[in-house]
């Protein structure tokens, strides 16, 4: 199961340059589409492909595009979400850094389908050097007539801009992103209205992840039906996975959806097994916000079927025994990892990144962080574990944007699957420095 669509030319030297990109077939799809197709057909192909948003939620892209309001005489916008700030996720950076023109070609194609004359790539502040790569690529594209007026003689005009964010995770949430892009404080908007109706500057807007937009190129190259044959069930196509943690070969891998998790972790082609031959303890499969799963549940579902890298299989069993594919940030933890310590890192992150608009998230994230710290410090009580559980339940689903859930889920999952580890911290305060003994997997 190794199929490469996005990274197939990744090994070619200087593929970031326009000339090299074109030598290897770059912009051929754009040329063909502008000459021989129309926006409706492009939308149809994307619908047929079954492509689902790669930013985390997995919403069908064709459907999202079809929701875009198209009132007469009102501009429409495409905005590319390159904010990528979820801990454990670094796939978009890789793609933009290596093959920036793939994203730009996807931006033009998607804009053509949506009737957007202007598009923006909103990129996180820390990726300033990637922004420069994109800007160089965009300048090349303008010089070659691939952007600007009357692209390739088709009559389609399009301008694409890069906007650098100021380093807030919350600006990855699509409506906070739009606020930030408009030059305002990056607070998520209260929905409705949704961006498809009133997005950037109040105009109909589609916000898509970098990888989603890039995938439009191979979809139009292969045709939607062919693309849909790749992958498994409703998880069509390929997915970039950024693998990190205690594995031999951390990095960004393109996988065909449906690859068994076990193969992904242990095969030489991908992660190459756990470093130092140690045992696997747990995996956070889709970026820091998705529920952590212990070895037995990440390799197999609760029904004993092999767990696959797909939206459905990872989600199998709901949160009781499953998780989510999320953004594809695959974080692997070996037998020596403290789940509580790891949770503290996540909790600190969400506390720091809450925008502060709604009370449960603003106050609750800090409270959870403090309790986890207390437990780690050896001052925790059994009631603290229950309190932690209760606080996360008071945040989940009661906030404006999903950051609340993103903060609550890791806490819930850590307690659900690793409660005994929290208890060892509580019960062995005198041994807190040497606590490894308690959380290390038993042979």
């Amino acid at each position, binding site marked *: 199961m190794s199929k490469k669509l996005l990274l197939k030319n990744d090994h070619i030297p200087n593929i970031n340059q326009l000339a090299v990109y074109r030598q290897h077939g770059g912009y051929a799809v754009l040329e063909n589409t502008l000459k021989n197709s129309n926006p409706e057909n492009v939308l149809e192909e994307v619908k047929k492909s079954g492509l689902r948003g790669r930013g985390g939620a997995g919403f069908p892209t064709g459907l999202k595009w079809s929701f875009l309001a198209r009132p007469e005489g009102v501009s429409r916008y495409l905005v590319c979400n390159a904010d990528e700030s979820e801990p454990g996720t670094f796939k978009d950076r890789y793609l933009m850094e290596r093959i920036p023109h793939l994203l730009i070609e996807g931006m033009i194609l998607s804009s053509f389908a949506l009737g957007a004359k202007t598009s923006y790539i909103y990129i996180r502040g820390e990726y300033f050097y990637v922004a420069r790569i994109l800007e160089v690529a965009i300048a090349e594209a303008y010089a070659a007539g691939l952007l600007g007026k009357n692209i390739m003689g088709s009559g389609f005009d399009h301008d694409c801009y890069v906007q650098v964010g100021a380093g*807030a995770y*919350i600006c990855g949430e699509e409506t906070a992103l739009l606020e930030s892009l408009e030059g305002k*404080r990056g607070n998520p908007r*209260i929905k409705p209205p949704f961006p498809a109706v009133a997005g950037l500057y109040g105009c109909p807007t589609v916000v898509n992840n970098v990888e989603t937009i890039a995938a439009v190129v191979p979809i139009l190259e292969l045709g939607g039906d062919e693309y849909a044959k790749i992958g498994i069930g409703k998880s069509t196509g390929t997915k970039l996975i950024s693998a990190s943690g205690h594995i031999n070969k951390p990095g960004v891998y393109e996988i065909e959806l449906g690859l068994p998790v076990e193969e992904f972790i242990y095969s030489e082609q991908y992660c190459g097994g756990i470093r130092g031959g140690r045992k696997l303890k747990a995996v956070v499969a889709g970026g820091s916000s998705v529920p952590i799963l212990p070895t037995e549940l990440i390799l197999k579902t609760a029904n004993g079927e092999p767990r696959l890298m797909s939206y459905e299989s990872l989600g199998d069993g709901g949160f009781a025994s499953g998780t989510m594919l999320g953004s594809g940030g695959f974080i692997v933890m070996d037998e020596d990892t403290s789940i509580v310590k790891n949770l503290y890192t996540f909790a600190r992150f969400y*506390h*720091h*990144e*809450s*925008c*502060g*608009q*709604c*009370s*449960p998230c*603003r*106050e*609750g*994230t*800090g*409270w959870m962080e*403090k309790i986890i710290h207390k437990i780690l410090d050896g001052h925790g009580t059994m009631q603290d574990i229950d*309190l932690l559980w209760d606080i996360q*339940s*008071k945040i989940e*689903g*009661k*906030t*404006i944007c999903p950051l609340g859930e993103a903060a609550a889920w890791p806490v819930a999952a850590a307690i659900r699957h690793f409660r005994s580890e929290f208890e060892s911290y509580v019960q062995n305060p005198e041994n807190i420095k040497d606590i490894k003994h308690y959380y290390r997997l038993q042979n």
Partner: protein
Amino acid sequence: MPLVTIDDIPVEVPEGTTILEAARMIGGDIVPPAMCFHSKLKTSGGYCRTCIVKVEQGSAKDPRPMPKPVASCRTTVMDGMVVRNITSPENLEARAGVVEMLLINHPLDCPVCDQAGECHLQDLGYEHGKEATRYEFARREFEPTDIGDKIKLHMNRCILCYRCVKVADQITDGRCHGIINRGEVAEISTYIEKAIDNDFSGNVIDVCPVGALTDKTFRFKSRVWFTKPVDAHRDCTKCCGNVRLWYQGEEVLRVTARKDQWGEVEDNADGSTAWICNECRYDKKNTSDWTIEGPSKIDRHSVISANHYETSLRNIKADTLKMMGSVPHGVKVELGTGALDPNNLHK
């Protein structure tokens, strides 16, 4: 007109009405508490989450329940919608959670806070909160600061409801008042050292649901329950001139806008909002400046009415008895309504 059912009470409301507005049309206990929504401020609401309700049925057309609790102040009703507020224990529990969150970093300095007695957070805590907090860590602290020479900001008490920001945005010009920083350390601020200097800036005090923004000309002069509200007006070139004067004895201690039963600034007879200018608020504190209309109607079962109305003593007795659990059998006690026959108390 859409028909919505809230806690089993049906009501027909105009198109575009929110659940909260529909509930207010019904009135009584089923009205969700609202801390950040303010009927006179556009785009307000949605932040505090105290007004959350459970939508059991989305509409007649699409009867599916909504997956999460919704902010009633920002959700419009659909025909056939079925909403649960106080008849859903789950919803009350969720609200108690929100109230707890609002209080964990609050200083609870009511004894020295000018807002005490007319504070929505006090009411909220009393009606929807729990007896004790489970929070044991140090509370967030900010230094009190001045916003101009007439307004004091106690950021410790702020619940980040954004109402004052909306006032600055919508009824004063050249906004320099907003929120800086993010998350838990976010705070209300004016651009460095720049006070709000504007004829209508004082209205931020009236919209603040807590004691975060208080009138420096009234600070520490009295407690609101020792003062007596009287409605009055004057010919003002800047604002409507319809105000509420707060007397202690013969002295006007404070001038505010008039507020309705929800604690939100009222409308004038012509439908405009009764915001008042700084001149009326700070500089007109003589009875001779005003044409007196009469005592204000205080609808909320608030301590403000405590010293001014005959029923108050009876109510206090009734409340006390109720709290002590010693209300005699057969005596119907309604909190704060004065429905109790004083003769029964002596039985």
